[in-house]
């Protein structure tokens, strides 16, 4: 039974990680908290749902489309909103993205009502492996593996490509990056696109198993804040391990203490870890 709980934790944690990776990129690069990140996830889930409901697309087939849609939303968010508040003092950028999250969430409610919607049939629905006592749902497994793969791709992208190195340089120092000929405006827009792509993948994978409704991204967004801080701002692998840790904390806490405490345990883990690592697990 414990093994089952641990496995569930790792699987969900992997998805948390991917959502957090998207957030940590923007946070590390621009020092901006994107409060609308959870709503980006919701957009991806709705995209997947509507492609399924209207065009009978399987969520896996919708994935690239969802990625494209959310990446575009990311770029627009940067160009139309974040760019204007990036250099404002204090928490003004937070104010803007919070307003944006309210807007997107309630736009969804206005357009599609607060009702829960489900992708009721897909390639993965109800398929599962049974190994001894362990039950592994195929949708969960695919979500976890897909999320891990995307995290890996992002990490490689940042590390190996020219654009990735430009992102790193800009995160270190915007001015110096500009002196070296980096078009930082473009880098910011690209980073928002990558950030959106991360939740695009996560959303499409989650739509297989989770209900789609206007608030569905909120809890992921909130957990992503904690995960990003736990991993150390801007640290991709930090976000990955922290995501797994939070996934485990949540399922273990839910199993031993009752599901009502599962998020409380996750938050408690953050507070405890930060007592020993005040800048996150992998903070510098």
């Amino acid at each position, binding site marked *: 039974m414990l093994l089952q709980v641990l496995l569930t934790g790792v699987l969900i944690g992997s998805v948390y990680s991917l959502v957090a990776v998207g957030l940590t990129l923007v*946070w590390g690069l621009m020092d901006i*908290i994107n409060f609308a990140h959870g709503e980006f996830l919701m957009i991806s889930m709705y995209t997947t749902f509507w492609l399924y409901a209207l065009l009978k697309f399987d969520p896996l087939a919708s994935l690239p489309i969802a990625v494209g849609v959310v990446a575009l939303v990311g770029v627009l968010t940067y160009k*139309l*909103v974040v760019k*204007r*508040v990036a*250099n*404002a*003092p*204090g*928490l*003004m*950028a*937070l*104010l*803007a993205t*919070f*307003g*944006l*999250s*309210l*807007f*997107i*969430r*309630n*736009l969804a*409610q*206005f357009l599609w*009502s*607060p009702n829960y919607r489900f992708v009721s049939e897909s390639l993965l629905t109800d398929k599962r492996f049974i190994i001894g006592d362990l039950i592994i749902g195929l949708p969960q497994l695919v979500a976890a593996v897909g999320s891990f793969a995307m995290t890996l791709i992002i990490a490689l992208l940042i590390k190996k490509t020219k654009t990735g190195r430009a992102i790193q340089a800009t995160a270190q120092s915007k001015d110096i990056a500009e002196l070296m000929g980096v078009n930082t405006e473009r880098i910011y827009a690209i980073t928002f696109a990558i950030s959106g792509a991360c939740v695009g993948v996560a959303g499409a994978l989650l739509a297989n198993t989770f209900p789609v409704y*206007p608030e569905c991204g909120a809890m992921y967004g*909130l957990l992503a*804040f*904690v995960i990003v*801080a736990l991993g150390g*701002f801007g640290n991709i692998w930090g976000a990955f391990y922290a995501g797994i840790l939070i996934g485990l904390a949540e399922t273990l806490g839910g199993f031993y203490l*009752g599901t*009502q*405490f599962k*998020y*409380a345990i996750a*938050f*408690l883990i*953050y*507070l405890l870890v*930060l*007592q020993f690592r*005040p*800048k*996150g697990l992998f*903070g510098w």
Partner: protein
Amino acid sequence: MKNRALYLIFAAVLVLPFAITNVNFQHVMIMFLIFASLGESWNIITGFAGQTSFGHAAFFGIGAYTSTVLFYKFGVSPWVGMLLGAGIAAVVSVIVSYPCFRLRGHYFAIATLAVAEIIKQLFVSWDYVEGATGISIPVVEDSFIAMQFHGSKIPYFLIGFALFFLIVMVARSIEKSKMGFYLKAIRESHEAAEALGINPRKYKLLAMMISSALTALLGTLYAQYILYIDPFMVFSLEISMKIVLLSVLGGLGNIYGPIIGAAILIPLSEYTRVFLGGTGKGIDLMIYGALIVLIACFEPHGIIGLLKKRGKKRGALYAKTNA
């Protein structure tokens, strides 16, 4: 000189609900007083001392629950509960802040958010205080002692005004005193503050205690005004964020910011709700969100920033807001 501006604000606020007796308007004024006061309280720890709290709903909720539970279970006057709630909030704030103050910047902000969420979860599963169901405050006849008034909103308004006056004056006297200078020094540079003989932890804790105690007072008023509380309402991230947003919108770090911010944001949110809410379609919050984005994009320095631009020299203005 600047005192006059402040007293003018007090006078205008006090007169308005008597001049405009529309019930909706009176309601908006009460919400304005509650949130302007919350912003002032929050401003002490975040605006002055620079320690961003995303979790002030925790103290608001503690205030609301303390007085409500005492009245509901034991018939204790909410006035007593209000003071007790402030005391408990201060104690809790010290317990949770002491370890958290080791953290800097966003790490601290996220920690406050985590603390508030944990406290919310605890209340949700705490049967003695009716858990997720929440508590309906037993209705009694109009009474000052029981802080319940059913005939008119004016008594609530007056209590709100008294708290608003108290909190603004506390914030102002902090700002003008040694403590205000020390908090701002800590905000600007931890190291420089220490080199000036300031014990940052002591002053941050003190600021946090005062800030959370004042926040709790408003929780009681809110509970008595609405006559119903549940954990999702009073401990919500929405409340924490609303406090942050209105203060940021008005301008951080001076006593006028939260008043200006609340004067814009609260009517905006209340009136969009009154006129556009009710359909359940979320148009009100949609427009509210869009307006916040617009304000942030086109006035990124806050409303105070806008006034400063209009004002004369920066130095002169600074002297004006601080003297």
